[in-house]
């Protein structure tokens, strides 16, 4: 499971929407096996690209408003936010090289 910072319904605007950084939000839940698998991979990508992208996670069980707002119906769902807008959505657990390739435009 990811060690990334937890964001919540209450903190989403401040931590994600109003941030001047590129933020990847990992929408996850404890009962989702693939979420547990992809969490550590996202941690690695975040650690290796700390100057380019910030990885945070949002527990959909505890934060239904944000999950509903972004119409999450499958997890893990990873959404990259830039300037308060969704710049990219990535669905499903993937190996690290595949995620890096999906995120290439933000890691360059």
């Amino acid at each position, binding site marked *: 499971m990811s060690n990334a910072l937890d964001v919540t319904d209450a903190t989403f605007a401040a931590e994600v929407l109003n941030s001047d950084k590129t933020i990847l939000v990992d929408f996850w*839940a404890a*009962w*989702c*096996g*693939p*979420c547990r*698998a*992809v969490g550590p*991979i996202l941690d690695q990508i975040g650690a290796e690209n700390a100057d380019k992208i910030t990885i945070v996670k949002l527990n*959909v*069980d505890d934060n239904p408003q944000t*999950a509903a707002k972004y*119409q*999450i*119906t*499958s*997890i*893990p*769902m990873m959404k990259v936010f830039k300037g308060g807008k969704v710049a990219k*959505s990535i*669905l*499903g*657990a*993937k*190996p*690290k*090289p595949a995620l890096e390739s999906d995120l290439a435009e933000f890691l360059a």
Partner: protein
Amino acid sequence: MRQTIIIGSGPAGYTAAIYAARAKLEPLLIASSVEAGGDLMTTTDVENYPGFPEGVMGPDLMAKFQEQAERFGTEVVMDDVTSVDLNGQIKKVTLGNGETHEALSVIFATGSAYRRLGLADEDRLSGHGVSWCATCDGFFFREKIIAVVGGGDSAMEEANFLTKFADKVYLIHRSNALRASKTMLERAQDNPKIEFLLNKTVEHIYGDEMVTGVGLVDTVDGTETTLDLSGVFIAIGADPRTHLIHGQLDVTSHGTIAVDGRSSRTNLPGVFAAGDVIDPSYRQAVTAAASGTVAALDAEHYLNSLPKDLVASAIVDVKPVAVPA
């Protein structure tokens, strides 16, 4: 160099590892980065695995498999195999991290991958109402109307599981012959939230941003109907995962890796295969586990036939993982 490398971490892979490790073959098991544990990782209650009269959760069962394999000295690597070179006495296995490992034998236990309906809108709406994982995504369909497509045990299990969340679950199958076991079928038939729609194929999935419905065609009289719903869970079976071995190993007309009779021996010496990747028929956790046993015993037999100094050169010092008492 290793005596044996096992590719896959479902019941077949881990059982092969348990037997291989106990035979002092010091296996290296490549588990996958995101699908480690295999299909049972997205299964809830497993009620038909012997030894668990109360049932066991799929992920818990796979954690036990892994622990048992590691206890006897299996080294487990959470990475994906990107290519293999199986010709010659020394096999090469390359991983996603770029490392190449050599071994005298390789066991393929790569399982199978979920089948798709093959509709254009299926990919587009994937993650927007189209799902392959009820345990991951059922939560998002509270008080909604949804459908499960398929007629096997997986489809019945998903339909039953999804009634915990959804108000109504249509079970759509292309014929009126359902492959599911009697127990699973009766449980679905007795569930007041499940409605069976048989002899129907899904021809369309509708929706701009999110799924809004499906278009069905009756396979008997050709009538077309539209159902309004917000989720489609696809459980129409799986295809053997053989992309690594195309052009190197023989495959059957079913697409499974071809093996010699009841053994796990492929057409190449030192290369074995087990579990769903060789099995077009049964595809159970317990048959996969048994198949993994066969592969480990076949690999051990093969290694015994090789020159002793060659095998000695493949012995590494793998320390068993200490299991807390």
